[in-house]
């Protein structure tokens, strides 16, 4: 196998290993602000920079590659599983460093996204990853963004060393329930995923406390104006004192955490779930998401629509279209949890466990709670303004600042960024509605969905709700 590897050129390895990495959707360069330094290459912008967009519409901000796709595991959904017959390759650490530095200089990428198949064994794989990151940071003085994926069964000491070199660490949950995971990826047990996640969370918050920050990650600043977001109810598990059990209590926290000049994974943790491979409902997925934010303090949860690559009795057939609309609704709901102060139980319930495909979750909630509308923009508070479809974080803050200085009108709030096409059914301005309407659920639903009749026909057609009448 070694001979096979050395015969491949750098470009061929890049093609194989980026092809294998593309199903990992977590690819933002966000979460940490870091200024550049003379003698180093790179900086980091908390908003995240999208350098390009691929042909499937997804953003490209990092060099997304695997260290190796030569896997000893055999997860049923994966293209690189050991049973599959595909080209295998492994990067050397120097090769990855060359690619990152040269791409970064040309402004193609913001940094590196490094994942890997389990090559030989988890310890060997993590050591290779550690060598790559260490070379990149110390020899090549790379100061840009690094997002590294931990392998299930990864040893604790290596995770700790790697955390001081990376900006974001993550480990894929793959499937929301333990049953799903054991059916499709038996070599990855749920504890082999959750234990490293817990350890990383404890280290991240321990480091933050050691340098005087809050224990939990920063969230969008609008959340402090929301009385009842998922973060106010967050259960903080894993006090830093749990760490110091094994350490000398007289030692300062920075001594415990070593590396006082490098932060531990400052952009936090994230994870990814596959949607559509097993039969979980949207309610189960969204509740898992909320629990991950509250209990593990994850920064982001990503969803990947399942694309059938392998023939298997337990998986959807090859050729099944990926559930893209469902994935889109889940992302919309994820945003509602993190920015708009919603809870999973408000959006879905066990008797209505899946999202409405014709309407986004926010409009759907508003139509089921019409007793709370219309909202008067001159008087409503931030949390109620945020619940209006068509008003987002920026427009709500602009409305709040502007309304103290003069009367608002529909035209002026439209210029501030409110989408009147949707919001006009739910707000009043100086006591008047924009157009005379009845606050009736069916009427507003028809108005909201009528504008895109063709799209609705396609959505309905894909679900089989409407069928061609057979007259003969």
């Amino acid at each position, binding site marked *: 196998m070694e001979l096979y590897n050395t015969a491949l050129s750098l470009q061929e390895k890049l093609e194989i290993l980026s092809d294998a990495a*593309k199903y990992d959707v977590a690819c933002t360069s966000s979460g940490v602000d870091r200024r550049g330094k003379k003698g180093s290459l790179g900086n980091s912008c908390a908003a995240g920079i999208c350098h390009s967009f691929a042909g499937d519409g997804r953003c490209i901000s990092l060099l997304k590659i695997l260290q190796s796709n030569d896997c000893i595991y055999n997860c049923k959904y994966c293209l690189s599983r050991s049973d599959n017959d595909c080209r295998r390759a492994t990067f050397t650490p120097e090769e990855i460093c060359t690619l990152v530095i040269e791409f970064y200089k*040309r402004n193609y990428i913001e940094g590196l996204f490094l994942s890997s198949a389990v090559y030989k064994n988890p310890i060997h794989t993590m050591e290779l990853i550690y060598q790559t990151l260490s070379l990149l940071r110390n020899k090549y003085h790379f100061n840009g963004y690094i997002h590294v994926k931990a392998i299930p069964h990864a040893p604790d000491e290596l995770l700790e060393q790697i955390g001081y070199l990376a900006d974001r660490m993550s480990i894929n949950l793959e499937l929301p329930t333990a049953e799903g995971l054991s059916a499709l990826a038996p070599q990855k047990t749920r504890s082999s995923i959750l234990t490293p996640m817990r350890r990383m969370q404890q280290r991240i918050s321990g480091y933050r406390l050691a340098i005087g920050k809050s224990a939990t990650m920063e969230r969008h600043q609008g959340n402090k104006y929301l009385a009842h977001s998922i973060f106010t109810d967050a259960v903080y598990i894993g006090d830093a004192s749990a760490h110091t059990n094994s350490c000398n209590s007289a030692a300062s926290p920075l001594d415990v955490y070593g590396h006082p000049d490098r932060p531990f994974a400052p952009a936090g943790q994230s994870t990814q779930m596959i949607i559509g491979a097993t039969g979980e409902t949207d309610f189960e997925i969204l509740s898992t998401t909320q629990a991950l934010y509250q209990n593990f303090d994850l920064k982001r949860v990503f969803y990947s629509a399942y694309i059938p690559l392998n023939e298997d009795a337990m998986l959807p057939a090859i050729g099944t279209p990926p559930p893209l609309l469902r994935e889109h609704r889940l992302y919309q709901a994820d945003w509602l949890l993190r920015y708009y102060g919603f809870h999973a139980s408000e959006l879905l319930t066990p008797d209505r466990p899946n999202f409405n495909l014709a309407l986004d979750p926010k409009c759907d909630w508003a139509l089921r709670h019409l007793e709370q509308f219309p909202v008067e923009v001159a008087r409503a508070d931030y949390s109620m303004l945020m619940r209006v479809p068509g008003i987002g974080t920026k427009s709500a803050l602009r409305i709040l600042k502007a309304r103290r*200085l003069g009367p608002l009108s529909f035209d002026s709030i439209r210029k501030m960024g409110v989408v009147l096409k949707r919001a006009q059914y739910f707000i009043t301005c100086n006591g008047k509605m924009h157009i005379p309407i009845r606050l009736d659920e069916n009427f507003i639903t028809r108005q909201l969905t009528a504008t895109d009749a063709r799209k609705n026909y396609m959505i309905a057609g894909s679900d089989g709700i409407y069928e061609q009448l057979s007259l003969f």
Partner: protein
Amino acid sequence: MTIYTCENTFEAMMTCIYDAWASKEGHQNIRLKAEPVGDMELFCEYRPIHPDAEKAKKVIRSIQRKLSSTAYLMVYRCAMSEHPDKLDRIYRFLLLGFAYPDKITDMLQHPYVSAVFELSRNVMNESHIFREIVRFQALPDGVLVAHIEPKANILTLLYPCFDDRMPSENWIIIDDTRSIAAIHPADQDTYLTALTADELERLKHTEDMTDPFIDMWKSFFHHIEITERKNPSCQRTHLPLWYRKHMTEFLD
């Protein structure tokens, strides 16, 4: 109606504001316009203003002190756009601003404020987009050269991002339409310069040079796409065709 005109540079525009204000003709009787003037109106007197560094400094200082630095940034970004009415909008905004100095940037319901806010937002969005889509070419001696063709004059808003990102590299960003360039020698400050026609001609050829990393980037770009999710119209929403002119992955 007197119309004060000036060149399309920031210093000239600030001088124009100073002279229009100092002329004491009455704010309703004057209008300001940056060049190109386009079709001239009948019954209007056109007065060209020449840039004066002292007057421009006075205007900038009084905006920064009496209004706020946020208001100054809004004015600067609005001035960098290519809208024909930008200078008049800035003038009306400043008139209102000196009446309500601390509230002016929040009074977005007022038509004068929202007019300037709209242009300033467009310019900031465009500068953020170019920060993402600028592509450098590595010359054999290690100098990195990039060409951009923006709609607004964003070069001064763009180069500080790269100052911070690559402080120890030699790089140049060239605005092809305006023939200006931002030049950064390694570990030194960036400076702006106007390019002559044959300098621009010589530098245009950098985009024809080949490089193994360009091919690797193009192949990465194609392989990272999931074919089952192919969606060119989604890609076009994020990357309109006019952005792609100087982006390596879309050239030939």
